[in-house]
């Protein structure tokens, strides 16, 4: 096995590209990230690992804008993310320049995934160690979209998804609890998924909400704390309701 992971252009006998799989390992160590698509709102959430006291947290932005109608969150190697995000931003503007139209979410996802794939089929380079969640509204139809890419270069569309640390638990939660939501309900669903694996509180999660009218808006700590409080109150109410035996069926 050890002989087949040096150069990633080499397949192993059982058809694995080990470097790509190791890159996925790097993603699994990255911070928990969740994305939920609503009917008129799309929410991205990322866990904020404890920031060192002296660090200016504003310089560590985990959810970024690629264009006025597209946003991206990722899990994995942050330095690799910077490079991919830069290329994507250039492509967004380049597309606008050449065809005088904004990119669709699918186009830019395909572009980023294509870039990630290129680095799995070249000599002397390693794959990008990150998976991305790309959200946005189609500039013509206004339909919201959520896509995921991974280090192998595959991409697909999702109603809700998670990546990074404990993504399986979050995805399980989303599969159990997903329903078509809009507005604040979408935000709550995303935060509830994130709270499954992250310590509760506004200073441990970063949430950004994208709407067609207002574009991407980062929620500040106070807002997140308020919604978390709401969620905990709802949870407590649900627990209490379960405990009382005198309920009509």
């Amino acid at each position: 096995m050890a002989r087949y992971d040096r150069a990633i252009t080499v397949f192993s006998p059982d058809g694995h590209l080990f470097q790509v799989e190791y890159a996925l390992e790097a993603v699994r160590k990255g911070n928990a990230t969740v994305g939920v698509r609503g009917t008129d709102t799309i929410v991205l959430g990322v866990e904020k690992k404890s920031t060192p006291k002296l660090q200016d947290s504003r310089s560590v932005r985990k959810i970024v804008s690629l264009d006025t109608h597209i946003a991206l969150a990722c899990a994995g190697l942050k330095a690799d993310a910077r490079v991919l995000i830069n290329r994507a931003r250039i492509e967004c503007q380049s597309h606008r320049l050449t065809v005088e139209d904004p990119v669709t979410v699918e186009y830019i996802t395909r572009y980023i995934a294509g870039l990630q794939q290129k680095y799995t089929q070249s000599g002397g380079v390693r794959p990008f160690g990150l998976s991305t969640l790309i959200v946005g509204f189609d500039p013509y139809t206004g339909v919201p979209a959520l896509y995921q890419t991974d280090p192998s270069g595959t991409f697909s569309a999702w109603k809700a998804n998670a990546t990074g640390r404990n993504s399986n638990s979050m995805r399980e939660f989303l599969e159990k609890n997903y329903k078509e939501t809009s507005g604040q309900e979408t935000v709550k669903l995303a935060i509830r998924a994130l709270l499954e694996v992250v310590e509760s509180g506004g200073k441990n999660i970063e949430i950004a909400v994208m709407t067609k009218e207002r574009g991407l808006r980062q929620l500040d700590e106070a807002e997140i704390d308020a919604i978390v409080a709401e969620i905990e109150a709802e949870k407590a109410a649900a627990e209490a309701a379960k405990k009382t035996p005198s309920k009509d069926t």
Partner: protein
Amino acid sequence: MECVFGLVGDGFALVAADTSAVHSILVHKSNEDKVMLLDSHKLLGASGEAGDRAQFTEYIQKNVHLYEFRNGIPLTTAAVANFTRGELAVALRKNPYFVNILLAGYDKDVGPSLYYIDYIATLHKVDKGAFGYGSYFALSMMDRHYHSRMSLEEAINLVDKCIMEIRSRLVVAPPNFVIKIVDKDGAREYAWRESIKDAEVSAA
């Protein structure tokens, strides 16, 4: 013949441009918008070779947007002016762009400003400027009537005087003009001055 002119007033800057697209003796259209909104607080009025004008100004606009996405804050007017001049200068001795530009912008700390950038990459920060045959008349009118910190009303009056001169004294005077302003509330279209209306009312 194309004309673009502009001036700086009290807390605002404005750019006026003719709206004719001409090829030899044929007028393609008389509602061509030559003053581009670069970003929320910048105007780019351009005149010259039609293809170069569209290509170069759009290229500048996309690069200004890219900077804003990359860095989270917009470029200052001075920075955009210098970037634009740089691009013209580099292209000058390879494949020059024939575009003359008046860049107007509003920055919170500096206030309104106007930059004169001609096709051979001259850059000047000015209070008033003009390009084209119309500049002979516009500059003369502005020399006579302009004073610093004009109110919007006075400035529009002066612009109308310039347009009047151009219309009456230039043999191939463009019939229609567009006026755009930029102030602390952003860049926007102010008015059109039309003496020939096209059949369709909406502008391109």
